[in-house]
C-alpha cells in the first residue's frame, strides 16, 4: 500500500534524495565534456585534421574529456551529432567545425540547449543570434602571404598554380594574398587558378594539378579541404609546393617550401579553459598571426637564409599589426581599380570579407 499523505518525514527523505541526486549528477558531470564535429576525415592532411589536432590538445587538459565525430555532412546529421553529444555524452561545449553547420543547425541547437556553449568555425555570428553560440575565423591570408613571399623568391618560371574549391570570398582572398606577396618580390609573377567546384574532389584536384604543371608553373598551392592529393601530385611532378590548413611537409619533403596553417592546438585549450572557468568570451571572434590563429609551416631546408629573414620580417609586422596586404592601388584582373591608391585595408576590414575579384596577374575567372 502506498500512502499519498505527505508527511514531514517523506518530505525530508524526498529533499535528501533530491540533494543526493543533484550531487551525483554534478559528480558524474565532473569531467567537462567537449565535443568536436568534423565534416571530413580527421586524417585528411587538411581542414579537418587541423581541427582534430586542436581537439587532441584539448584532450590533454586535466578534467576535460573529448568526444569526436568525423564525416558529418552539413545536413540533419549535424543536428543529430550535436544532440547525441549533449544528451548521451553530457557535452557542455561543442565545436561544430564546418562552415555550413551554423545555419540552421547550430542556431537551432543553441536555442534548444541554452546551457551548452557552441564554438562554430566560420565566423558567422551576428547580433540577434543566440548568445551561447560563438563563431570564429582566422585571417589565414596572412600566412598565405608569407608563403607567397617564400615562393616568390624560389620560383624560376615566375608562374604559380593555385587549385581552389569555389570562387567565394575566403578563397579569392587567399589567391589574391598569395599573388600580391609574390608580386612584392617580383612584379612579373603570375598565378593560374583552377576551381574544382567543391571542397573535396580528389580526382579533379589531381587533374587540375597536372594541368597546371603542364602549363609550366613551378609552385603549386591550394585551397581545398584536403590538400593531400594536390601536394602529392605536385611532388611527383617535381614542383615546389606551399601547404594549406595544416603541415603537409611529410607528403613532399623535397619541395614543400612552407605553408599556411591553422593554429588550433594553441587556441582551443585556451578557449576551453576560459569557458570551463565560466568566463564569457566574445561571440564574434577573429584573428591572424597576432591573435595566434595562424602560423607558417617550418621552412624547407632549401629556403635560403635571406628569404627566411624576409618572410619572418613580414610575419613580425603582422604580429605587430602594422602590415596591410590589401593596400591600394590594386587592380583586378579585368583592369578595374578595386582598391584605390592611398587606401590600406586592415585584416579586420569587413569589406575584404565580400571580396569578389581576382587581382591583376591572376589567370582565372570568378564565375
Amino acid at each position, binding site marked *: 500500500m502506498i500512502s499519498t499523505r505527505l508527511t514531514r518525514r517523506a518530505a525530508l527523505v524526498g529533499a535528501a534524495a533530491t540533494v543526493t541526486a543533484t550531487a551525483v549528477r554534478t559528480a558524474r558531470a565532473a569531467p567537462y565534456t567537449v*565535443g568536436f564535429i568534423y565534416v571530413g576525415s580527421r586524417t585528411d592532411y587538411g581542414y579537418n585534421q587541423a581541427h582534430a589536432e586542436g581537439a587532441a590538445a584539448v584532450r590533454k587538459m586535466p578534467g576535460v574529456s573529448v*568526444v569526436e*565525430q568525423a564525416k*558529418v555532412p552539413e*545536413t*540533419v546529421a549535424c543536428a543529430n*551529432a550535436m544532440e547525441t553529444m549533449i544528451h548521451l555524452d553530457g557535452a557542455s561545449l561543442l565545436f561544430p567545425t564546418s562552415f555550413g553547420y551554423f545555419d540552421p543547425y547550430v542556431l537551432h541547437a543553441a536555442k534548444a540547449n541554452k546551457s551548452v556553449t557552441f564554438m562554430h568555425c566560420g565566423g558567422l555570428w551576428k547580433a540577434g543570434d543566440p548568445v551561447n553560440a560563438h563563431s570564429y575565423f582566422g585571417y589565414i591570408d596572412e600566412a598565405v602571404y608569407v608563403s607567397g613571399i617564400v615562393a616568390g623568391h624560389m620560383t624560376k618560371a615566375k608562374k604559380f598554380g593555385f587549385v581552389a574549391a569555389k570562387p*567565394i570570398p575566403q578563397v579569392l582572398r587567399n589567391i589574391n594574398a598569395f599573388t600580391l606577396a609574390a608580386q612584392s618580390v617580383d612584379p612579373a609573377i603570375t598565378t593560374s587558378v583552377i576551381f574544382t567546384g*567543391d571542397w573535396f574532389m580528389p580526382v579533379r584536384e589531381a587533374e587540375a594539378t597536372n594541368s597546371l604543371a603542364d602549363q609550366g608553373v613551378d609552385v603549386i598551392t591550394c585551397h581545398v579541404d584536403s590538400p593531400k592529393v594536390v601536394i602529392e601530385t605536385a611532388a611527383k611532378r617535381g614542383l615546389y609546393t606551399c601547404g594549406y590548413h595544416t603541415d603537409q611537409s611529410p607528403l613532399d619533403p623535397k619541395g614543400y617550401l612552407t605553408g599556411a596553417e591553422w593554429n588550433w592546438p594553441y587556441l582551443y585549450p585556451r578557449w576551453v579553459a576560459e569557458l570551463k572557468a565560466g568566463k564569457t568570451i566574445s561571440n564574434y571572434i577573429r584573428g591572424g598571426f597576432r591573435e595566434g590563429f595562424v602560423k607558417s609551416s617550418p621552412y624547407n631546408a632549401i629556403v635560403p637564409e635571406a628569404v627566411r629573414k624576409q618572410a619572418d620580417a613580414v610575419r613580425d609586422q603582422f604580429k605587430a599589426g602594422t602590415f596591410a596586404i590589401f593596400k591600394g592601388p590594386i587592380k583586378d584582373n579585368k583592369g578595374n581599380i578595386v582598391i584605390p591608391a592611398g587606401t590600406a585595408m586592415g585584416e579586420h576590414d569587413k569589406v575584404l570579407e565580400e571580396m569578389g575579384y581576382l587581382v591583376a596577374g591572376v589567370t582565372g575567372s570568378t564565375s
Partner: protein
Amino acid sequence: MFERAVTAALAPLLAVLASMVLFAAFLLAAGADPFQAYGLIWLGAWGSWFSWQNTLVRAAPILLTGLCMALPAQIGLVVIGAEGAFVLGGLAAVGVGLPLAGLGLPPLLVQVAMGIAGIATGGALIAACGALRQFRGVNETISSLLIAYISIAVMNQLVEGLMRDPASLNRPSTRSLPDAVMLGNIPGTSVHVGLVFGLLACLGAWFLVFHTRFGFAARVVGGNARAGRVAGLPVARLVLSFCFLAGGAAGLAGMVEVAAVQGAASADLATGAGYTGILAAFLARQNPLALIPVCLLLGGLDASGGLLQQRLDLPDATMEVLRGVLFLTLLASESLQGRISLPRLVRVRVAPVAAAGE
C-alpha cells in the same frame, strides 16, 4: 497472407543476421568489442525516446526516396534516380515558396504549393525516364542515374547563380524560407511532419499496388509487359503513372528537406537520401509496406553511427562498412528466395508459396 509475408521476409532477415556476424568480425579486427558496439547501436538508435526521435528524423526522407525505387519496380523498372528528383523537388519547392511567402499568402497555402511543386518536379523527372524507356527503349536504370547527376549539377548552377542570395558569401545558397512557412514538428516530438508524409505514402503505395485494379495491372505488366499488352492493359499509361508517383515521392522528400530541415537550398541539398532509398527498397524487397521497418533500421544505423566514433573511437567509415556488408548479403540472399521457407512445424496448410510481389 501472414505466412506469405513471413516467408518473403525470411531471406532478408537471414541476410541482416549474416551481416551482423560479418560486421562483428570486422569490429573484432578493428579492436572493438562487438557486443559493446551493438549495445551502442541499440542505445543510439532505439534505446530511448531521444534516440527514437533521431532515428525517425533519419528515416523520414528514406521512406519517400525508397518509394522512388519500389514503385517502378512493380512494373519491372529499376529506377535509381531518386537523388535527382529529391534535389530538384527541393529546389522547386524553394523556388515556389519564396515568392509566394513574399506575397504574404497564408502559410498553409504556401506549404501546399511547395509540396505540389516538389511532387510535380520530381514526378516529371522520373516520368521522363519512364517515357524514354517506354517510347525510345533507353535503359531506365542508366538514364535515371545520369539524370540524377544532371539534376545535382543544375541545382548547383542555380544555387550559385540565378537563385543565389547575394548575402550568402562563402556558402552559396538561396534565400531562406521565412519561419512562418516552415513545416513544424509532430506535436510533442522533435520529429518533423515529413515522417507522417512518408508513412502515409508507404501505406498508400502498398494499398495501390496490392489492393487496386490499377496496381494489379501494374504487377501484371511487371511480370510480363508483352502479356500485359496482349491482355489490353494500358502499359504506357501504367509506366508513366508509376514513374510519376515514384518521382513525386522523392520530390516531396526534397520539399520536406528544405521546408522542414534546411530552410534554403544549397549544395547540401544533395544529402544522399536518394541513394540510401535504393538500399532501403532492396532491403524491403520493393514492398512499400516493408519499407517502414527497413527505414527504421537504416535510420537507426544512421542515428547511432556517431556513438561508435565517440565512444569506441572507431573510424568514421565503420557505419559505411556495415551498410556495405548489409547490401551485399541482401543481394546474395536473393538467390535463397523461394528455396527456404518456414519450418514445416509452422507451415500448417500452405500450398507452395509464391513470394509476394513476384
